[in-house]
């Protein structure tokens, strides 16, 4: 991956994440305000293609966006560079995608 690709990927995922984060936060507020229970929420999300896409995209974008940014920060503030850093960031991206993916399945998947 050249720096140009990483730069592009980070800007694109930022574009995707911005509205999703706002929608996600707005939803939390609305849900908390409406006093929905976990069971009521799950009843709405289970089996929903829309929610699956919403949170699937969210997790994927975050898993790409986060490690690229963290890699920049690490390169700026520590001497860590090169392959080991790239590998660590790939691993982090994979971890975020896996954990996030599990959460999406838990919310959207049929039990």
């Amino acid at each position, binding site marked *: 991956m*050249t*720096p*140009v*690709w*990483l*730069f*592009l990927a980070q800007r694109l995922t930022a574009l995707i994440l911005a509205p999703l984060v706002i929608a996600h936060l707005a939803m939390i507020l609305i849900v908390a305000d409406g006093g929905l229970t976990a069971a009521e929420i799950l009843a709405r999300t289970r089996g929903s293609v829309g929610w699956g896409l919403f949170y699937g995209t969210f997790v994927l974008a975050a898993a790409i966006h986060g490690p690229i940014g963290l890699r*920049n920060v690490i*390169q*700026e*503030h520590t001497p860590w*560079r090169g392959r080991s850093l790239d590998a660590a960031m790939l691993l982090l991206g994979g971890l975020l995608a896996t954990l996030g993916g599990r959460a999406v399945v838990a919310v959207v998947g049929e039990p």
Partner: protein
Amino acid sequence: MPQRANQTVLDVVTWIQRHAEPALAYRFACRVGVCGSCAMTVNGRPRWTCRTHVSRVARERRLRIEPLRNLPRLKDLAVDMTPFFEKWQRAQGRFTPTRTRAEPMAAVRPDSAPRRAADAGIECINCGVCHAACDVVGWDPDYLGPAALNRAWTLVNDVRDGDRHGVLKAASAGGGCHSCHTHGSCVEHCPVGINPTAGIAGLKRQSLLDLVGGGLP
């Protein structure tokens, strides 16, 4: 030391060397803002000392004069500019000719967009002030810095250059234009009014365009 009208910071340093500390090391040449060799940190900010009037920067009649930031100090107020010019080379900040002197001069329209973009950054005097003002240069030893990238941007826009793709590639490699935070400290401090941030943004844009096939001719 005696106070004079229109006294510059460089005058002060020179007075100190002549009258108080003969071993003081510092650098200057033209004294009129052309050569770019006299930059130092004055009251915490990088400045060209030959064109900086004491009356404008002294705080309560005090001046604190230090060497330029982000470059290794050689002695007293003189820093080693080698890393600065090495980065200049790493960014391929040098002209690649396509004609010999026997051939006629290339005709370049002064009002064409690329020429105007190049002209905006061409008057750099290599003083290193922006390099010293940039936090990212201080954090990341690989970062090419505003001066080298500004130079690269002028070459990317110079239609006479024989390797503009090479320049763009060098300037957008690791530690290149994509490491810039766009916070504009370089613009704020450049004594000749160059805007390296704009040039670096141009490099980012051009490198993205190149990626999707709409790049340099």
